[in-house]
């Protein structure tokens, strides 16, 4: 990238997901749906969905941009152009969006006629709860859903339709085997990428989609959206949804009401695998377009170049000049996103070739390689076996490369080797066979760095996974959660438990209880007792750090 003079520094929230830890339980999807899309008009909408790869994803084959025309393409002159067409073309085709997915491409949402189970007259047959369409209310036949091919279910019939499987077969002549013993799979949770160069925003004729200057969260102004639907085509991840009742576009909000008060998003908070990391990065907004114009193979590096070093005095000075509070700069320095994406270089962007500069990063799973080795009877965690296997088992690596590096297998191999080296190194520590500095050196890291990475990835303490600065203090009195804190001398962070447990004592506003009780409990090493949690209600209060009922 050409050296340009840095004149502005902005902050962007980001997420990293460690795919090796995802067990595909869909808790993130369910809690997200409960919080955000459990409404008329959004029955089919999943701001967060978990798809099994190989698989078609949701909506079906959304990655096939020849068909869905999402994201950006580079023009012959080296500029950027929306794949779905320029401004004039978009306005001319506004009366019927040429490539908008239909409900059938997502699925027809349904419920069951549970009432029939208790109201059916006595008879010889067991009453059944028939599926009813949530669109028409009529009986329906369930033929597809947001995760129909979960855990490779039915994949012998449908996985060949995965656009990446198709591409690998056509271009690299690599067959991905779908027989159970020979296949591989992993889970890919997806939310809105909150891109630095969002093509949904560029597609919106009304200008209703905006990026928040403070934290980079991409939102749809519900009052300015007029339902032209171009954003749905524009987003290559198909994370823009049409609310068929209100006639407006809706999307993942990065749970901004929670983020503003320092709480993690619902999907992160409720993740049982604790695989999500939240933090902010500092970036140069004036360099984004140029970075998005890079050669396809350089896009990953160009995206990393946008992330500024939060310790660089010039960056700090410019950030302060732009009005960024000190706690934000400090949060950027402790950011797990910066650490995993840029410092350790183990987190990769999803489909950088769409040129939207996505800000949700993925640590590619080592598990397909380990699993395949174990199936073949090898010790899946020995360093020699793993290093060799990453290179020889080309299919998972090239599949991962199509997802995360626009097909560059070298980058993926490098990341997987780091993860493998970390496993083997820590195995040595645990088994007492010693710290092997050669293992670290083999992947270009120091033993210290490997152990730091291990701490962040494997120990993954709550306070290290989520480094979320709260919204600007000078405006904080306007924010609901903190507004209540003015009534309490000690403030939300200082709130103490009453004599009978965490939530006892004099009644406190719900907002304060949510904020401080949750924070205290999340940072504790032991689970809270169920007595301490009585009077708690609502999914938003739920987290994985509580005892189960026996």
């Amino acid at each position, binding site marked *: 990238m050409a050296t340009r003079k840095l004149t502005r520094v902005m902050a962007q929230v980001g997420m990293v997901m460690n795919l090796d830890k995802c067990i595909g339980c869909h808790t993130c999807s369910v809690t997200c749906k409960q919080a955000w899309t459990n409404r008329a008009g959004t029955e089919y909408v999943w701001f967060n969905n978990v798809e099994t790869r190989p698989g078609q994803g949701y909506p079906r084959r959304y990655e096939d941009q020849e068909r869905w025309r999402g994201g950006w393409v580079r023009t012959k002159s080296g500029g950027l152009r929306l794949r779905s067409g320029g401004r004039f073309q978009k306005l001319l085709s506004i009366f019927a969006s040429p490539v908008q997915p239909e409900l059938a491409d997502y699925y027809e949402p349904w419920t069951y006629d549970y009432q029939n189970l208790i109201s059916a007259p006595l008879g010889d047959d067991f009453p059944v709860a028939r599926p009813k369409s949530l669109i028409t209310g009529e009986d329906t036949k369930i033929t597809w859903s947001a995760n129909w091919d979960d855990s490779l279910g039915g994949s012998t019939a449908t996985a060949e339709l995965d656009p990446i499987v198709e591409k690998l077969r056509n271009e690299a002549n690599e067959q991905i085997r779908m027989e159970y013993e020979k296949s591989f799979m992993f889970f890919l949770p997806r939310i809105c990428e909150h891109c630095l160069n969002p093509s949904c925003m560029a597609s919106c004729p*009304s200008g209703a989609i905006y990026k928040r200057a403070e934290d980079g969260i991409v939102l749809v102004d519900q009052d300015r959206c007029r339902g032209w639907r171009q954003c749905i085509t524009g987003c290559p991840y198909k994370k823009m949804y049409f609310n068929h009742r209100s*006639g407006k576009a809706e999307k993942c909000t990065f749970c901004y009401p929670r983020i503003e008060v320092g709480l993690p998003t619902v999907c992160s908070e409720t993740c049982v695998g604790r695989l999500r990391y939240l933090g902010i990065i500092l970036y140069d907004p004036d360099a984004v377009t140029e970075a998005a114009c890079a050669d396809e193979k350089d896009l990953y590096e160009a995206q990393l170049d946008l992330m500024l070093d939060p310790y660089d005095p010039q960056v700090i000075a410019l950030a302060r000049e732009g009005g960024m509070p000190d706690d934000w700069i400090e949060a950027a320095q402790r950011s797990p996103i910066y650490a995993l994406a840029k410092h350790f270089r183990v987190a990769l962007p999803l489909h950088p070739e769409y040129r939207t500069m996505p800000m949700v990063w993925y640590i590619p799973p080592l598990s397909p390689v380990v699993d395949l080795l174990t199936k073949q009877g090898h010790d899946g965690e020995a360093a020699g076996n793993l290093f060799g296997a990453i290179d020889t088992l080309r299919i998972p690596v090239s599949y991962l490369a199509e997802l995360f590096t626009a097909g560059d297998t070298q980058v993926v191999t490098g990341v997987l080797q780091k993860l493998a080296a970390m496993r083997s190194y820590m195995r040595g520590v645990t088994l007492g066979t010693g710290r092997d500095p050669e293992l670290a050196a083999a992947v270009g890291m120091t033993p210290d760095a490997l152990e730091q990475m291990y701490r962040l990835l494997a120990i993954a303490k709550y306070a290290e996974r989520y480094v979320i600065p709260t919204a600007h203090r000078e*405006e904080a009195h306007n924010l609901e959660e903190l507004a209540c804190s003015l009534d309490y001398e000690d403030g939300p962070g200082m709130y103490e438990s009453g004599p009978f447990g965490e939530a006892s004592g004099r009644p406190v506003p719900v907002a304060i209880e949510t904020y401080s009780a949750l924070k205290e409990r999340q940072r504790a090493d032991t689970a809270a007792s169920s007595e301490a949690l009585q009077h708690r209600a609502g999914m938003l209060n739920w987290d994985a750090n509580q005892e189960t009922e026996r």
Partner: protein
Amino acid sequence: MNAVDILLWGALPYVVALVLVGGLIWRYRYDQFGWTTRSSQLYESRLLRIGSPVFHYGLFVVLAGHLAGLFIPKAWTDLVISQETYHLIAFTAGTIAGVATLLGIVLLIYRRRTTGPVFLATTKNDKLMYVVLVAAIVFGMIATLTGSRTTAGMEVNYRETVSVWFRSLFIFQPDVAAMAGSTWQFKVHILVGLALFALVPFSRLVHAFTVPLHYLFRPYIVYRSRDVVVPTASRGRVRGWDPVGTLDRDRKTR
């Protein structure tokens, strides 16, 4: 010229203009959330992709024809082309555009009636709007095809009656006599048209007033500062949060 004429052609246009302008201002201030095309493309795309562009582009040509016919005085065009040539061009282009618009809307209504989810999303307001809209187009076609002669067989040029009256409205000196001298076909078309204008702010037709032309000029990436929402103790009615199972056409909110 009688009292009815004065009421219809002297007073009614101003009432409609007030309703239109006042209604638009009201809706823009108090119902931004409801200001949308309410697209049904999610449910059905095949027929929409034919019907909708045919209807809308047809409508644009029709609109251009109306503006030319109503605003350009006959005396001006007489300097350039003869009345016969003008009429031939206007008649041919108008009929083609009118037929296209009509075919488009018929296809859209057919789609709306036969596609289950689309029909279920159709409100009473929509149905009324479709009746008035189709009536305006149909009577417009009738006026174009048969409106040039009175029942007595006398030739009437709309550019010497309707257009003169229309222009006189803007200087607040309505030429009621000019309009009263027109044929019943034009009169009915204009009355239905006025009804349609009055309906615009209160129906989905309102989307026409937010044609996003500024898209051509705005930057691709929009940065905006965080909205500062002052918390309220009870939120009462929150639009867009109706429970699952509420039908699209059900306009009541909790």
